[in-house]
């Protein structure tokens, strides 16, 4: 077990890109080593030690590294990018691209997350105990496959374009979702406990369940009886008919 505690020294406005904050990168490193990892602050390079007070307890391999981040890191991007193992706990709001492309391990955000959390995720787990903004678990610009594996749980609400181009894995939003969630889903599972608007266009395959109200049902799904999901009965829709999709959309 290796515990790394990062405490933000001073809140920044110009974004810091800290894709080096991962258990993989920190495994086996001392506080001095970690302090000397370079990160971009705007167009200049600084070091993690300039940004955070770093305390390391123990030394271990990535799967046994726990990184705890304290302070408002709502202007620090890409925390946990590409991580394969271990754990990150963020006690505060976090900036964009947290946990993007990660393939293993767990990130917990005890605050709100900005856009693109868990984008292009391959595996592992993300839990946000507040809200998240746009493009949770989506693909990046131009890509036609986004999240392919892993699980994202948002305990609050999310904004538009949840899980765009998702092709695997699971997303559970316990609050409401915004516009156009699950666009071009190709095999992922999306569950929204609250409401959603214009859900699930161009779904090829996969499952989308909306437990609350769907505002403005897109005219691209064919009603196909009912289906049970977790002990409850839903109206079942199949589509997107325009791409001969075999996706399932369950709504109340």
């Amino acid at each position: 077990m290796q515990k790394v505690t990062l405490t933000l020294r001073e809140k920044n406005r110009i974004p810091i890109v800290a894709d080096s904050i991962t258990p993989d990168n920190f495994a086996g490193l001392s506080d001095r080593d970690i302090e000397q990892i370079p990160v971009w602050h705007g167009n200049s390079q600084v070091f993690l030690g300039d940004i955070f007070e770093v305390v390391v307890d123990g030394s271990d391999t990535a799967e046994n590294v726990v990184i705890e981040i304290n302070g408002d890191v709502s202007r620090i991007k890409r925390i946990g990018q590409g991580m394969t193992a271990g754990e990150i706990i963020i006690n505060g709001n976090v900036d964009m691209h947290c946990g993007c492309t990660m393939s293993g391990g767990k990130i917990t955000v005890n605050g709100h997350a900005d856009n693109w959390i868990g984008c292009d995720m391959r595996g592992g787990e993300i839990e946000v105990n507040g809200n998240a903004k746009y493009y949770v678990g989506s693909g990046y610009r131009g890509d036609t496959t986004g999240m392919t594996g892993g699980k994202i749980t948002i305990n609050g609400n999310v904004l538009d374009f949840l899980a765009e181009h998702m092709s695997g894995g699971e997303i559970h939003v316990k609050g409401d979702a915004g516009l156009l969630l699950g666009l071009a889903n190709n095999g992922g599972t999306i569950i929204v406990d609250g409401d959603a608007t214009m859900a699930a266009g161009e779904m090829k395959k996969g499952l989308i369940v909306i437990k609350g109200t769907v505002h403005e049902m897109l005219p691209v799904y064919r009603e196909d009886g009912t289906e049970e999901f977790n002990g409850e009965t839903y109206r079942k829709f199949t589509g997107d008919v325009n791409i001969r999709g075999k996706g399932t959309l369950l709504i109340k």
Partner: protein
Amino acid sequence: MNVITDAICPFCGSLCDDLTIKVENNKITDIQRACVLGHNKIAGVTDHARIEAPLVRKDGELVETTYEDAIERAAEILVNSKRALSYGWSSTSCEAVSKAIELAEETGSVIDSCANVCHGPTTLAVHEKGSPAASLGQVKNRADLVIFWGCNPVHAHPRHMSRYSMYAKGFFTKKGRKGRHIAVVDVRETDTAKIADTYVQVDPGCDFMLLQAIRSAINDNEDVIPEIVGGVPKETILELATMMKEARFSCVFYGMGTTQTRSKYKNGDAVSSLLYDLNQYSKSVMIPMRGHYNVTGFGQVCNWETGYPNAVDFTRKFAYYNPGETGASDTLLRGDVDAALVAAADPGSHFAQEAVKCLAKIPLIQIDPYHNPTTELADIVIPAAVVGVEAEGTAYRMDSIPLRMKKFIDTDFKSDEQIVTDILEKVRELKRGA
């Protein structure tokens, strides 16, 4: 007297190239064939209040200075910034754009064009689905159906209709307007809608729903379409679909009504998907109604020089692109830039209040021929020649056809291209010194 024929109008993305300009003693004395927008811009070079000299803000007031001083101050601001925003570059030449990109790369800045508040979402839609397009002459020579969706050319592109779309006569369209069906889809009955054959009124923000419904109709999936979609009756939706399927050649011109409304880039994406299916039955293309005369050119140059069409962030020395994060409005709303260079655009007028507030707080350099709301916020103001009137250069029409803009009259003002070149040189000098 000097008569310039086939002159190119530097106003909108129609980039009309048939103007005749008469010049006497370095004064424009006659402008033929321009619309009111183009005429006022070209005539305005001498009529309107120009920024007469470089200005710098001292104790809250803008006071005159020299080009040299203004350029040096501008360079200092950029060199000292951690993340500057370079914005605009849409009413200027491709040559100036190219230099602006080099400056952004050199200073580790973010650079974005007016597409940010205009057709930026169109670009995002192309990333998703591509763009089935054509040059405007294909519409002129072939189209028997033209659909204006969320655009109002009577006001925004006045000569578009006679030169390319509504009235134009071509090889297969000898009857012009008579042989062509015009449909308008909009949230209000615009002046364009008033002269159309079909007007479909859609509820605000429901374009995406309507486009999906038409696509379902095209694909013989009428059964999934409810009786009313976005305020439009099913019957009308089926009529639109039939109209599109039966046309020999159709074009959807789309504007801000699709990009600036709810669902944003998904509307353009949906037009593209609709055409992807429609082309199995009937030839159909889509062309965005671009606003600034060379906002298309910015996209072209930025795309070939950086790999991305706009919203490029060079803070990490390589090109990083992600509208929503690196767009001009995004950076200003988040307040995560510490200086701005604005050229050939007026965010003071055309950005949302929250974004303008950020511009007002940070050091702001403006390059422009005219005093405008951005000037009110600027700390350094560098007057420029009017490109397309006082300086030549390349511009791209809304259909990506390049044209070389002419210079009609001489001026003592520096061109945008020259000003940026000078700033870039000064930046390099300062960096070498540092």
